[in-house]
């Protein structure tokens, strides 16, 4: 489906930017009016750390749960995780491509894109058949920024495409948030630099909701877990740790630790990556 700039359904926020695209191509079952919803962009590095992936997913999920539209670039890493998080919360999500609307790029996210099209949208300013090219992605980023009221940069290297998105957002007067990262990690150099320049640090989804004047969703009661699991959760909240570290500190045996961690994972309180467990929220 093609939406010309003259079309009344063309998203007004996008029309307001400096160089709006002449037309938007849409695919998916979502209504074009979806693009007028209050939207937040979640962007970041493709080769993100497990921490970045988990934060992106958590933000995607919580933003969607608060009724916001999650917009991102359907790339690997942070983008994909943000979309997945939104889908987990059952919310619609919009992916902006940097290639022709008939393409799946990158191919690994083809399945994700199918899931997004069910209820959401995948959009592009490029007509079918246009190849992905390095210079099209910055252009794509201006659409992400243009569609959103706020942009959250989760993890970005020093010269990351996510910073381009943030620049566009600033130019158009949209809010820019950045997730604080380790000061020693090159993966967070870009997002931390953004904070230094005055971006709002984000530590929970409420920071975004407050800025947009949206009422906070009542925190859902923490799921009931066993005593052992609660003890383990307290330790994981002190900092990401491997199972063996927890074994020593919680005075439980290796089997019991594994059982407790699974319980926490199923309850959505803990996520594992590369053998390291982190608390979510």
């Amino acid at each position, binding site marked *: 489906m093609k939406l010309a700039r003259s079309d009344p359904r063309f998203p007004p926020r996008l029309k307001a930017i400096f160089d709006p695209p002449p037309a938007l191509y849409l695919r998916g079952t979502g209504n074009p009016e979806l693009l007028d919803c209050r939207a937040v962009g979640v962007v970041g590095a*493709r*080769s993100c*750390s*497990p921490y970045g992936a988990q934060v992106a997913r958590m933000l995607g999920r919580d933003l969607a749960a608060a009724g916001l539209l999650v917009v991102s670039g359907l790339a*690997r*890493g942070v983008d994909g995780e943000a979309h997945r998080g939104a889908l987990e919360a059952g919310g619609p999500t919009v992916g902006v491509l940097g290639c022709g609307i008939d393409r799946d790029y990158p191919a*690994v996210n083809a399945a994700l894109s199918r899931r997004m099209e069910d209820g959401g949208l995948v959009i592009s300013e490029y007509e079918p058949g246009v190849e992905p090219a390095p210079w099209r992605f910055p252009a794509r980023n201006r659409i992400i920024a243009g569609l959103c009221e706020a942009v959250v940069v989760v993890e970005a290297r020093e010269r990351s495409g996510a910073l381009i998105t943030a620049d566009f957002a600033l130019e158009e007067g949209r809010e820019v948030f950045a997730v604080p990262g380790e000061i020693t*990690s*090159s*993966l967070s150099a870009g997002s931390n630099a953004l904070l230094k320049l005055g971006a709002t640090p984000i530590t929970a989804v409420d920071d975004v909701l407050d800025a947009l004047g949206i009422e906070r969703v009542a925190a859902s009661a923490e799921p009931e877990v066993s005593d052992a699991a609660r003890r383990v959760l307290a330790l994981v909240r002190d900092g990401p740790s*491997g*199972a*063996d*570290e927890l*074994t*020593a500190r919680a005075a439980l*045996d*290796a*089997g*019991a*630790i*594994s*059982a*407790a*961690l*699974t*319980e926490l*994972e*199923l309850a959505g309180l803990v996520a*594992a*990556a*590369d*053998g*390291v467990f982190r608390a979510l929220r």
Partner: protein
Amino acid sequence: MLGRTVTHALVGLEARQVEVEAHLQNGVPGLAIVGLADRACQEAKHRVRSGIVSAELEWPSRRITVNLAPAGLRKEGSGFDLPIALAILAASRQFPPDRLASHAAIGELALDGRLRPVAGVLAAAEGARRAGLGRLLCAAESAAEAALAGIEPIPARHLVEVVGYLRGEYEPEAVEMFSNGEAPPVELPDLADVRGQERARRALELAAAGGHNLLLAGPPGIGKSMLARRLPGILPPLTRQEALEVTRIHSVVGLLSRDRPLMDQRPFRAPHHSASVASIVGGGSGPKPGEATLAHRGVLFLDELPEFQRPVLESLRQPLEDGVIAVARVDGRAVFPCRFQLVASMNMCPCGGRGDAGTECQCSPQRLASFREKLSRALLDRFDVVVALPRPRAAELGGAAGESSEAVGRRVAAARIRLEREAPARTDASTALLDRAVERLPLSGRGRARVARVARTIAALAEADAVEEEHLAEALAYRSPRELAQ
């Protein structure tokens, strides 16, 4: 004049009876060997002639034709030297030919007439026993191995001794049956050497108790190989029947130790990642067993799993399910047993930085993706227990020595008995937990069955009567993590 001996040729792991006939006739003196003999076997001509002459026996100055029957079966190796020599000596009546009845022979001749041991004596001895032959003439070094087949070996160091025995002038010393002699057992590495690594130790114990395939993932240098090498030490000992199977396989490829011919310890095979398909599953023109078969009843360890060629990994899928490999070649077909336990290790990314708090992963998304693509979903599905091991902090390594292999082995043996007698069933609560997990986690149908199997093992190790929720929750922790297979 005609002389005849019986020996055995190997087809895969099986011995086929071969009759060696020598015929002396008038004509230009010479020796011809017919009956599909390979290169090593053709060269027997020279060894046999020198051996007979060195033994101060008479080399018949006649035209000699040696036939290896059945002529259609391919014969390989040097084990035919002794039977050929004996057939020629029998044909020239240097000992009474009927003395050879109920004897089989196998062995290589040295140029000075000494007898050398060859590979596959156990299989040949078993073939002889099945054919109703009671005695096997062989090299002294092979005698203990032949005795394992329940046949009487006639050990000889030299061709002269064999002929002396056949003339009734010399009686070789009897070989003790079923014995490994005085040689001390090979020391297996002990689990007590592993400090910390509680999760990995637990996974190893589970793998041993349930016979589960195990995948260890983690940054380089955290002791993945060290852990894997300690698995055979906690597995229950081989039964006599299993030990014979293992011995037969190792005998065929010539890997038996002379001091301890009976392989009563579980084999541990760790082929390098440059291995070809044929070297792993077996192959060659007369199919020879590969590493998978050598690991039969033991452990096959693939270090750096993603470095193996993709076809090699895929070729292991079917043997993992079936426990046998059928290798078909133009010249023959062989079925090799391969009931091994697979243990593999891998880094979490090509640069090895993932899972290591001290370094940052330098891999590009493309490189990481191609690294993971190597491990097909189907292959990962064969691992019941997967553990991701982050690099331990220094404090964890300073801990006390861990439990010894002996203590863990006792628990493993007890759990195996429980599992065999009556595997614990799931309670309703644990089934509900499993269903919930399938909904929430990326878990395939096969993955679900795998978790259920591991949970049973955990319950058996805990000496529980049923699979409780806690057992199932722990089993879920060993599913293959999403990031390895996404």
